[in-house]
């Protein structure tokens, strides 16, 4: 639902629309740039950094990072593990066996089979990495998944989907130019954007168009590629195919399907001619030549930086931001031969990133909301010792919630990725709507009250755990304030502290009442009545926080 439809459907009162419009006009931008941030380093800065770089954070994370310098923190977050983790295994065939793959065996190198189960297995596999990884690796991988977007249900073959994911994980902080070349030849993108059907007899322009419109130069103010450039690029890309006989399938070049004539590009690309070539390496060689041309356009670097900015900082890019942030970062990107890491490092260490104007202003995408909650609330997803059925069903449930909230892992709505990262003017406001808001609210209610039981295992938030992590759980003021501080991205007002404390101490009861309950719970947890009271009060207090509009932001 776009914004216009939303307003029509909800028929707000005219003054409310006017109020919103007025708010939108207010100038809230900043002139800060990419100089290194030198301000205070407290839990608020740490939470800002971790929220944007990870999926949620733990109390231990906050303590650990507050103890480092800003610079060291960013460096550590960027110090990713580049080894390939254990491959996803068959956790999906507990009802119907996969004839090609035994239970618990790796499926990515087995014959094509049970693609729905395998795709869900792949989602669960990635989700668990998102929750557990302590570096920026998974957030960057998601950024590139949204950038080189492909739908696993359109790719069909889950082995190819895994190959696609493995590729973007491998390059998440690597060299963007090499990355682009490998993605171009990746079986997943060849399949998704019809590259495997692109021949000298019948050129298919699909990939050639998206390569320029979305993946490299983009359609920003400095871009100027033409329709003829799309046609020329399509001819460069002819001849690539997918060998499905391999496990997993691979791409290969078939020279007799390749267009061997010269390809003339427009003045936007300096009227470059990519010389037609023949032979086994013709496809790869011409691709290199074309990418040299595309990466010579400074707009390519700016387009990627704007995408990174929208994902990691905010969606409004005004003239100051373009001058002070986008342009210098693009310069760094080019100076470093399109290596991604120095750019991210500079951005995350910048005064602009830590500027108050950019704090707490991103509406959490469903993965941040759900997986971030799972991490921050220590949600007890089934351990590996549980049955595959329990593991699969409970993990898939979190992914199903994200899908219902309009963000399906490995299934973005189109090659453009999720509209929240490109749709003017709403951008990430698209995440919250009449469809998604009730889901966001009710899922918190479920996990904090009854939990979800399936396969004899209950996934449920433990409110005592959260309380125990505060510095003095028997002091209601410290408990409430630290819970607010932990879950919310911005400091709470005195009113919010008071209205939240009222869930712990209804009717203005004196503080010692809570102290007695907590102390009794600690000294005698077998006192069922007191323990229940303690649990109920904590539940309502924490639910009142998780239910806040403020909790939707980070």
């Amino acid at each position: 639902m776009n914004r216009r439809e939303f307003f029509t459907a909800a028929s707000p009162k005219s003054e409310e629309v006017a109020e919103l419009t007025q708010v939108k006009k207010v100038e809230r931008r900043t002139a800060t740039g990419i100089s290194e941030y030198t301000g205070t380093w407290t839990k608020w800065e740490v939470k800002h950094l971790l929220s944007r770089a990870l999926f949620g954070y733990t109390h231990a994370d906050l303590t650990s990072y507050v103890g480092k310098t800003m610079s060291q923190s960013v460096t550590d977050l960027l110090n990713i593990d580049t080894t390939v983790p254990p491959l996803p295994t068959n956790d999906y065939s507990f009802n119907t066996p996969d004839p090609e793959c035994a239970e618990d065996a790796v499926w990515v190198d087995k014959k094509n089979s049970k693609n729905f189960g395998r795709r869900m297995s792949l989602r669960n596999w990635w989700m668990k990495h998102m929750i557990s990884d302590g570096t920026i690796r998974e957030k960057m991988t998601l950024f590139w998944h949204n950038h080189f977007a492909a739908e696993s249900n359109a790719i069909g073959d889950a082995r190819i989907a895994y190959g696609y994911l493995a590729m973007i994980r491998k390059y998440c902080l690597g060299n963007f130019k090499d990355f682009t070349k490998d993605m171009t030849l990746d079986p997943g993108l060849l399949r998704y954007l019809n590259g495997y059907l692109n021949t000298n007899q019948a050129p298919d322009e699909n990939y050639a168009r998206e390569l320029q419109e979305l993946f490299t130069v983009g359609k920003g103010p400095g871009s100027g590629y033409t329709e003829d450039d799309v046609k020329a690029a399509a001819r460069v890309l002819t001849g690539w195919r997918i060998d499905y006989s391999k496990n997993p399938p691979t791409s290969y070049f078939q020279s007799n399907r390749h267009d061997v004539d010269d390809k003339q590009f427009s003045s936007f690309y300096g009227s470059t001619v990519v010389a037609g070539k023949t032979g086994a390496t013709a496809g790869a060689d011409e691709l290199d030549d074309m990418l040299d041309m595309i990466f010579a356009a400074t707009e390519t670097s700016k387009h990627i930086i704007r995408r990174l900015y929208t994902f990691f900082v905010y969606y409004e890019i005004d003239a100051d931001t373009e001058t002070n942030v986008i342009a210098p970062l693009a310069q760094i990107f080019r100076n470093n031969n399109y290596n991604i890491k120095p750019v991210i490092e500079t951005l995350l260490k910048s005064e602009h990133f830590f500027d108050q104007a950019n704090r707490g202003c991103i509406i959490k995408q469903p993965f941040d909301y759900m997986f971030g909650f799972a991490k921050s609330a220590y949600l007890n997803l089934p351990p590996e010792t549980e049955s595959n059925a329990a593991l699969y069903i409970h993990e898939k449930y979190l992914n199903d919630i994200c899908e219902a909230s309009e963000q399906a892992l490995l299934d973005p709505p189109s090659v453009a990725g999720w509209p929240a990262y490109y749709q003017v003017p709403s951008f990430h406001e698209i995440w919250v709507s009449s469809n998604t808001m009730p889901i966001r609210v009710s899922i918190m209610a479920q996990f904090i009250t009854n939990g979800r039981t399936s396969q004899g295992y209950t996934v449920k938030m433990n409110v005592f755990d959260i309380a125990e992590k505060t510095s003095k759980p028997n002091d209601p003021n410290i408990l409430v304030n630290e819970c607010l501080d932990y879950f919310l991205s911005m400091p709470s007002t005195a009113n919010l502290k008071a209205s939240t404390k009222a869930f712990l101490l209804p009717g203005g009861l004196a503080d010692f009442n809570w102290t007695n309950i907590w102390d009794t719970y600690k000294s005698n947890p077998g006192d069922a009545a007191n323990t229940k009271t303690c649990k109920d009060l904590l539940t309502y207090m924490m639910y009142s926080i998780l239910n806040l509009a403020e909790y939707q932001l980070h």
Partner: protein
Amino acid sequence: MKRRNFLKASSILPLGIGGFGIKNLSATPFLASLGLKAATNDKILVLIQLSGGNDGINTIIPLDQYTNLSKARSNVLITESEVLKLTGTTKTGLHPAMTEVRSMYDNGLVNIVQSAGYPKPNFSHFRSTDIWHSGSDSDENWETGWLGRALNEEFPGYPTGYPTQDMPDPLALGIGTFSTVTQGPTNQMGIGVSNPATVYNLINGNTDTPPNSNYGKELTYIRLVNDQTNVYTQAIKAANDKGKNLSTKYPTGGRNNSLGEQLKIVARLINGGLKTKVYMVSIGGFDTHATQVDASDHKVGAHANLLKTLSDSIGAFQDDIQLLGLDDRVAGMTYSEFGRRIMSNLSGGTDHGAAAPMITFGKNVQGGILGNSPVIPDTVQIKDNLPMQFDMRQVYASAIKDWFGITGTKLTNVMGGKSFDILPIFKGSNVSIKDFEDIVSNIKIYEPFPNPAGDEVNLKFKTDGGTITISVFDPLGNLVKIAFRGRVASGEIVKSFSLAGLSSGNYFIQLAQGNSRVSSVIIKN
């Protein structure tokens, strides 16, 4: 791009506390035809929680016990001549601040249940509140609330499939409060708002103005979406816009007088057409351990201010409901987690107690007082409490049956499988307060002898004959002994029974016939 099955996926999601999943209203006639019928009647109950433990004997003052009261609680007791008199009784009066409730009582709009509580009282605010909300015995831990169970009987499956054409509105609405009283077996049946004009956050109710920043801009947007997309917030706001108040009697004074403000909102929402069955409002500050009265003048001070707010707010609300022509449908009920100790303490206050009076009001209540004045012993120990005369679950069962019209096995389910005698609280009940009073007036209990007593004591009493129960309560309000249960002949009778094994101190002897109870005090040596 393929259109995803978002809606299909979202429909599988269960809903929890919030209970405010948004369903397409156009689907509701279909759902209604499947049997999701409206409640059996259009009656509305407004629960007023007096949080902290209200001092019942300084609220509903037992004038016939005044001599002993003045010995036990001289630090807080209201001067006898200043106690408000009630028409038709000399035994009971009201705190001088409660002029509005007095005039309602005199007009037959107030029903007072004396010494309501539960066996084995608990003195923790939270635990006792839990017991009051759940309606369990004090040694049981129930996860559900009595009104949550009642609403679940009437609106099974809520919130799945709701709102419906017949019930387009939230089942229960807390104004500035939200508690386990409306927790149903699988879902919370209520929602909470602080200000129906700006709902924003449905649970917490915080409405701080967002800062002028990108954060503030997005926060404003999310709140707007929250409001606009939640059918219940729309229904609440629509009722708030459409409804009006006619009474000019509401007390003013902002947050500190928030009970009046809360009840004013309730009246407006009902007038605006909201079909919500239960409203919850609350007033805190009753935990008056110290300086509950001014030392120089006991009719003023913290407790007097609270009772004035309570009385003025109830008076204004009833006035409003009457002027709006809604008084046939609306009843209110006060409760508190416990009363306070008989004896006042040295800091001019009272400590946590046990049984206390409940006030039910409205056009359709049976005006009068159920039960006798709580008996105040001649010599009171610091730990002494009032024994209950009525189980508060009798009051609940009466409201469920005689107000909401829920009967039979449904009523039994609401009461957790237990059976409670119905009290003459609402008009249209099978029991009438007149019959009740007649029985009471025909029962007489004399002072036990000897007093003080050893292990044996004798009790002389007079009834019209029938089944009676003689119970012994300890000073904490615990039922410690059933001394006799059986049929007796009419006229004066003396029964002897043993107090062996009880430690020394005050005990209450209670004689019950049907729902009528009379008490006396015995001192055990």
